[in-house]
């Protein structure tokens, strides 16, 4: 989704005046005439510049790409609902969200026909690890701390690092401002959420302290067909049990202007989560539990040295996961396992402007270690060298954006990701862009080393690769945003588990898939306070593995059609929002013989804003009470109701 400023901030006028925080979105559409964009650059307040530059020095790179398909979901501009982070990602074009059980339960996202593991998930630019494979669990990231989500699709994400085959998501946390926020919500399935945040200033230093908690009993009724879809007579209503979750998270941040053209920031983010693991239908558990812990320590600084900008960062990300299935209900074997990852990366970048162009060079060294006996306690050390540029011609009407990233990994060889794009402003709000490139994904620890059950790691694996090309057209006028785009992706050397013998599977670089798609988004603000959004994604995938029964088939899990419509009202003390999601029918196996039916989700919210800083909202999710599954074997809940009270004050 793309950034919109709230009426109170922008006086109800869409996009004008341009605020720096909107800049990246504006650049994406590139629809404005040059003077607007240029003036916005010049009009940056030093305070806002601090915020953007300190927190994400990499924004000098891909984040302000103009020749790319990128979207932004701004959480601080949304109505104060109880929505979780995964649910918001339904709104991004070509994003496939997979929810395994509701509040606090496993949720993953993938882009453009890829798998969750082929989508790079960053937290403030730091890659979140998923050493066990299967992609990053988004439920671990507290939505209350996220200010905006950048979704970068296709090859333009090449600069962000290895892993972005389908694209990348960057979850950007709140920045210190002199304000406060208190949000409380509760509702169905015994769910309660609470979040508080306060920001203050002391001298040249700004501070942010935030905490959030969440608790959900999670049990919900569903229709259990008992594995006999052809026999409705034995169906029964059943309670999804051991589906509870609890989480506690905190965020502390300090950032300061050194007064000499330099800025530093230090961030500490932590989250602890405990939840039941209900399991796959037919193999359910009442005792299996999972505890997860995530901690990020992030120290960044940048310094303006003449026209150049030098940025340094040191980041440490630690995760731990303890899983317990004492009765062996899920796999037939009692399990007590513990897994820890520890990542440290040190990076430096320099941005060098020359004439109207600029170049960025970066060097990052990182180490990621995993403590898990089943994997052999592996360690991966990587060095990444990046170079990107922005070449402006014809008064910035034409931009060329080349970029390349060389990654040297201690256990996976060297790989180059590269992309090149061009954008052209046509006038009257119209613009076009195109880009092409190559992205890679290094084999995960699980694929390389894990020996567990029927799976056997393969240390001879090499990187997966995606070649992509895309082109788009955008129209941006006051109160109107229209974007249309098409892309083609060729995935090859995909790592797929093949039988090495009966009961033994070993990953091999044996998969090839072509994906072609189209993305359309329309945003309207016909009158002050009213916002409408329509998103449609078409995705045609084709297996090119050459395998019988699979070659020519669709990729499982990806519907051909997905759509979303949202209508929001925020004016005259009344708040209302209706959101409808359509997830098309999709196959569940590579042979394309079975499928999950299409899903329609309708969410309705209504509330009041008795004062500009206070709101009370009632939210009804899944009003049509659709109880189909998002992932086969994992039921989702039906209708649910939530009440949210939100108080805030101070600097917007």
């Amino acid at each position, binding site marked *: 989704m793309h950034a919109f400023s709230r009426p109170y901030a922008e006086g109800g006028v869409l996009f004008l005046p341009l605020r720096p925080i909107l800049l990246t979105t504006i650049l994406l559409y590139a629809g404005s005439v040059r003077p607007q964009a240029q003036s916005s650059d010049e009009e940056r307040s030093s305070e806002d510049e601090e915020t953007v530059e300190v927190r994400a020095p990499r924004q000098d790179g891909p984040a302000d790409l103009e020749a790319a398909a990128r979207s932004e979901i701004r959480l601080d501009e949304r109505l104060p609902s109880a929505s979780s982070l995964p649910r918001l990602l339904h709104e991004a074009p070509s994003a496939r969200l997979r929810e395994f059980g509701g509040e606090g339960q496993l949720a993953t996202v993938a882009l453009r026909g890829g798998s969750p593991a082929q989508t790079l998930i960053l937290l403030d630019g730091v890659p979140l690890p998923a050493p066990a494979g299967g992609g990053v669990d988004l439920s671990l990231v507290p939505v209350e701390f996220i200010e905006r989500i950048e979704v970068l699709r296709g090859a333009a994400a090449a600069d962000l690092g290895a892993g972005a085959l389908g694209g990348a998501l960057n979850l950007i946390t709140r920045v210190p401002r002199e304000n406060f926020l208190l949000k409380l919500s509760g509702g169905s399935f015994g769910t309660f959420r609470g979040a508080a945040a306060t920001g203050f200033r002391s001298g040249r230093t700004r501070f942010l302290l935030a905490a959030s908690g969440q608790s959900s009993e999670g049990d919900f009724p569903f229709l259990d067909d*008992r*594995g*006999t*879809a*052809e*026999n409705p*007579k*034995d169906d029964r209503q059943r309670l999804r049990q051991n589906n509870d979750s609890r989480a506690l998270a905190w965020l502390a941040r300090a950032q300061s202007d050194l007064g000499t053209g330099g800025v530093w920031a230090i961030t500490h983010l932590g989250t602890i989560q405990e939840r039941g693991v209900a399991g796959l239908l*037919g*193999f*359910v558990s009442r005792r299996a539990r999972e505890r997860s812990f995530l901690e990020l320590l992030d120290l960044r600084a940048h310094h303006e040295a003449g026209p150049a900008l030098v940025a340094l960062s040191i980041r440490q990300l630690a995760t731990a996961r303890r899983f317990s299935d004492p009765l062996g*209900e899920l*796999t*037939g*074997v*009692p*399990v007590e396992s513990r897994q820890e990852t520890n990542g440290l990366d040190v990076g430096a970048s320099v941005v060098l402007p020359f004439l109207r162009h600029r170049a960025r060079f970066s060097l990052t060294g990182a180490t990621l270690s995993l403590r898990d006996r089943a994997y052999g306690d592996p360690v991966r050390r990587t060095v990444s060298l990046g170079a990107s540029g922005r070449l402006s011609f014809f008064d910035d009407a034409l931009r060329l954006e080349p970029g390349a990233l060389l990654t040297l990994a201690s256990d996976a060889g060297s790989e180059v990701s590269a992309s090149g794009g061009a954008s052209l402003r046509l006038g009257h709000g119209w613009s076009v862009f195109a880009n092409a490139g190559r992205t890679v994904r290094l084999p995960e620890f699980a694929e390389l080393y894990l020996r*567990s*059950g*029927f799976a056997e790691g393969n240390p*001879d694996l090499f990187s997966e690769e995606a070649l992509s090309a895309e082109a788009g057209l955008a129209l941006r006028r006051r109160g109107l945003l229209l974007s249309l785009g098409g892309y083609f992706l060729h995935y090859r050397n995909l790592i797929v588990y*093949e*039988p*090495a*013998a*009966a*009961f*033994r599977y070993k990953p*091999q*670089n*044996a998969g090839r898939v072509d994906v072609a798609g189209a993305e359309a988004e329309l945003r309207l603000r016909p009158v002050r306070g009213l916002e409408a959004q329509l998103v449609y994604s078409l995705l045609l995938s*084709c297996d090119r*593995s*050459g*395998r*019988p*029964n*699979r070659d*020519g*088939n*669709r990729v499982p899990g990806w519907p051909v059609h997905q759509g979303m419509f949202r209508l929001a009202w925020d004016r005259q003390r009344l708040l209302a929002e209706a959101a409808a999601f359509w997830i098309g*029918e*999709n*196959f569940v*196996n*590579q*042979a*394309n*013989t*079975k*499928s999950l039916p299409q899903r329609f989700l309708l969410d309705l919210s209504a509330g009041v804003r008795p004062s500009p800083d206070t709101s009370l909202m009632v939210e009804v999710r899944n009003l049509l009470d659709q109880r189909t599954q998002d992932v086969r074997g994992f039921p989702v809940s039906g209708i649910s109701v939530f009440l949210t009270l939100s108080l805030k004050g101070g600097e917007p």
Partner: protein
Amino acid sequence: MKRPRCRWLGLTAWAFVASACGAGGDSPLGDVRLIVVDSLGEDLSILSADSPPVVQKAVVKVGKAPNQVLLDGAEAWVLSSQSNSLEVVDVTTWKVERQYALGDGCNPYWMAQAGDGTLIVSCFLSNEILRVDPRVAAGASAVLSRLPMPTGVDLNPTDPQKPGFARPQGVAVVGNEVFVTLTNLGSDWAPAGPGFLLVADLAAWVITRKVELPSRNPGFVYAERNGGRLFITASGDFSGNGAVEVYDVSARALSGRVALGGAPGRMCLADDGRAYVGDQLDGRVLSFDTQTLAAGDPQVLCPADFGAGIYDFVADVACAGSVRWAACFATDKVHRLRTGEAPQAFEVGDGPVALAAVAP
């Protein structure tokens, strides 16, 4: 949801052949000579009697991850391991007539028919065997009774600190006795100790004895037609040390052993006096003389025709008259073998795992 590729050509060809050949005799199966369980496609493929056979894929969808098919007159019983279900398919209409739930956590692996028409089903994960009536009404429970398998130190683990789980797999019924292979796998899914042949009394529904086997990881058990002997295939530790154990039913003792090598899995007993065994390790059909127990030359059938270092395996073999069939799991092919003829391969559905052959 429509598959992206056209299937009308194959269906048309099949309809043409079927109509040209008529009903094909008295068998409710007509001209069908082979039923294939496609584990990954989760459906059945069928092959006709024509030469070459007409293959019809996905004639009927079954449960999740089907494992085995048994024929009984006009019905085919299909055991689906991930949906914990038993499907009863009408082989004249190729529709699922009835479907029964076997219970959460079962992971049904194999079944054998008892004399009274009930089925004995092994539950690989829940470590029990079930007695199932496949003829009850759709809304009723088909599971008549459950019998837990021994566990822990009862399985003579190599390391008493790491006892195994029974993991019952193969089932055979001879008279009033049920024979079940216990793989005895540890928490790492490797053998935790010796394999066992467990014997239960069908009428009393109790375990009567437990026979320790020289081989590890016994998978399947097959009874001779006269019920005199049992052949137990054991894959060992998948390093090429597999064997077939021979058990004399009347003597209640092991009577022989065939050191076949490989990882012997599913098997069939042919009219030529030989047993043919699928190698679960590297795509061969192994064989031995059932009287002399002399091993024959292996026949390599499932070439790895995709990707370097990828090996296929023979998931099942079936014997019918002078014809033998072998299923290659990863290459999605079944091979027809006739003595004196070169093997012929036919593409079937995704992941063929089990076969049921029909004699002409």
